[in-house]
């Protein structure tokens, strides 16, 4: 079986497993919705990683998406309208910020993103009378496309939306990476001047990937807000951005399934670690990351695809 076909099949298999897990345990549905949302955000980071650029501040767009939902929910309390609205706000913010961060590379790119996300964090904290500071804003119960749903049905709706979005964004990102735009991203990583000689503007290539990643992170933020129903400035804190990069490394940057595998593994490790040793979960997460860096540099996806490659060769 070829790798792309395996990727698609594996994606569907993972989706089916998620549904089964969510069916069997109600609280797992919540954890997995968050995992899918984070996976979508990390998928955006993956696009930038293809260009060799690490953003240490993508939690900014997650927070923008989440706070858009929180601010708009009292006037338009419908999930079907809030999700695209949040994505739009995040996309606009991404376009604006992308205009100048796409001029920078490597550490400057990463640090500028980090700085901007911390600026947003401080704003959420300081504009206390608007944002209620660190206490955060509660998202009221929402309707879905005009229908009033009870708690369990609404949770299923958000879970299903997250799953469909994850599959759609995954398929889109795969097509995008195989397209000339995606190949150009790879070229930024290897040697940018070659792109310029070919008449392609690296800035535009990076900018479009950046805007896409902001949109994905915005969707992720909206999903997180609809799931937890309470948003706090912590969503935009640097540790939240670090978490996204952590997931990208854990899952592996080689394929679009990586972010989702990474996010699911991350959330499950955290939940199980927190359940077994409530005050040592950070240590366990750290150990897992160290093991991945030392022994599986391609992440979970790297392990899987290496095995599949061997199988195809035999």
């Amino acid at each position, binding site marked *: 079986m070829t790798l792309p076909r395996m990727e698609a099949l594996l994606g569907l298999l993972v989706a089916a497993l998620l549904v089964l897990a969510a069916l*069997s345990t*109600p609280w*797992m549905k919540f*954890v997995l919705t968050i995992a899918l949302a984070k996976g979508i955000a990390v998928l955006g980071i993956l696009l930038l990683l293809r260009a060799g650029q690490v953003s240490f501040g993508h939690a900014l767009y997650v927070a923008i998406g989440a706070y858009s939902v929180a601010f708009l929910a009292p006037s338009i309390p419908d999930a079907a309208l809030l999700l695209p609205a949040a994505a739009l706000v995040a996309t606009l913010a991404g376009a604006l910020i992308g205009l100048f961060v796409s001029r920078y590379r490597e550490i400057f790119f990463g640090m500028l993103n980090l700085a901007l996300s911390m600026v947003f964090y401080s704003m959420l904290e300081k504009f206390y009378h608007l944002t209620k500071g*660190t206490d955060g804003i509660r998202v009221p119960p929402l309707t879905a496309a005009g229908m009033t749903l009870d708690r369990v049905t609404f949770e299923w709706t958000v879970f299903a939306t997250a799953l469909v979005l994850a599959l759609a964004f995954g398929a889109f990102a795969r097509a995008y990476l195989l397209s000339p735009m995606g190949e150009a991203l790879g070229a930024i990583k290897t040697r940018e001047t070659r792109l310029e000689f070919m008449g392609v503007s690296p800035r535009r290539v990076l900018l479009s990937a950046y805007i896409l990643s902001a949109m994905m992170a915005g969707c992720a933020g909206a999903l997180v807000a609809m799931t937890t129903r*309470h948003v*706090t400035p912590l969503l935009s804190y640097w540790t939240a951005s670090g978490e996204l990069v952590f997931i990208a490394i854990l899952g592996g940057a080689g394929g679009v399934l990586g972010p989702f595998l990474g996010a699911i593994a991350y959330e499950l490790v955290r939940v199980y670690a927190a359940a077994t040793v409530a005050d040592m979960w950070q240590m366990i997460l750290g150990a897992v990351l160290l093991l991945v860096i030392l022994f599986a540099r391609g992440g979970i996806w790297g392990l899987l695809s290496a095995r599949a490659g061997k199988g195809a060769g035999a």
Partner: protein
Amino acid sequence: MTHALSPSRRQMLAAGFGSVVLPGTLSAQAPAQRPTELRIGVTTFLSGPASVFGVPGRQAAEMLAEEINREGGIGGVPIRLFFVDEAPGIDHLVGEFRRLVQNERVDVMFASISSGSCLACTPLAEELRKVTLLWDCGTQRIFEERRYQYAFRTQANATPEILAPLLYLMKTRPDFRTIAVLNQDYAWGRDSWEIWKTAMDVLKPGTRVVAELFPRFGATDFSAEVTRLLALRPDVILSTSWGGELDTFIRQANERRLFERSTFVLPLAESSLERVGRTLPAGHIVGSRGDHWHQHPRPANPQALQRFVEGFRRRTNAYPIYPAYHMAQAFSALRAAYARALQGGAAWPSDAQLAAAFNGLEFDSPTARMRIREDGQGLEPQLIGTTAHTDRFPFPVLDNMVIFPPELVTTPVGQNSVAWLRTLTPEILARVPDAIRAG
């Protein structure tokens, strides 16, 4: 710690994720059977800066659970604790809350130190129909913005905790004219200043605020602020900071003799006394978010207080601070509620029956008799004192203590705190009880 590692719990989790099909919704009305154990979920800070409160809270919970189990449990059922760390943020906390309710099937939740956590958990508890005791968080917003059927607070809230030190200041140093504030820059720092300022403006109009300093949350250097305060020479310096920041501020202020120029009002400093030791000079005003003080001059039951303090000291080698007392209050309220629900040989209460037992419930704190009002808010006295140095302790103790009755300083049911504070008149000072000298 050991019970958290028991294998049965891991197996439960594994089984939960694997194949066991659990009902999608939990019926709060279903008649309940006497369980083999009473499961209590506790959310607290186990990491991060607020673990200075979270860890003593946890230690107190473990101590009390052991004590209760030695005495045969609650209603004959032994209790078991499940801890959750609040530090990773709301999405993790809300997920863990659900896991404890839906998978571990806890009977009661004790929610949160952080006000943000409480604001997120309380509506969730209502949706899941699970009795939740707000054991430590301070925000007054919870019961003023909405009514809850399943949530109860077994302690006071920010309004009495800030109004009491203000009244104490006005009673003991009535002639102050200028004030400066230095609070952490986050919700609590801003909220507490708003409460103070609103009350001060009606009780002592004309007081000049010479500086409003909000250094960032987690700051480690206050030298610029100290310089400014030295130059401004305010009569009073208010700080509702806590934990490492309060300790650092006290040390840096002491090094530069700020304590000699201004009177400090530190409503949360009871939790820092043992750590800062004699760095905190005598003659400054200290509160404890309630009437929590190991040398309480008039405890309702002196033996009970002493047993609690000594037990906690044996276990942790430190005096209990207010979160430990708050934890004791949550356990005491829970015991009283079960006793009430099981009165006259009634069957084991369902979630709804247990919740009903909390309305108007009276229970003992380590220092006083407390009551839960009809809106779910607990009525807790407030103890404020002035620091003094003695030979008996290597840290400052409280002297000239005033114990404020809760009715005097708590916002009445159904009213907004800020609106209520605006209706206060200086006559309230006449109703402040007399100070008690340390024994």
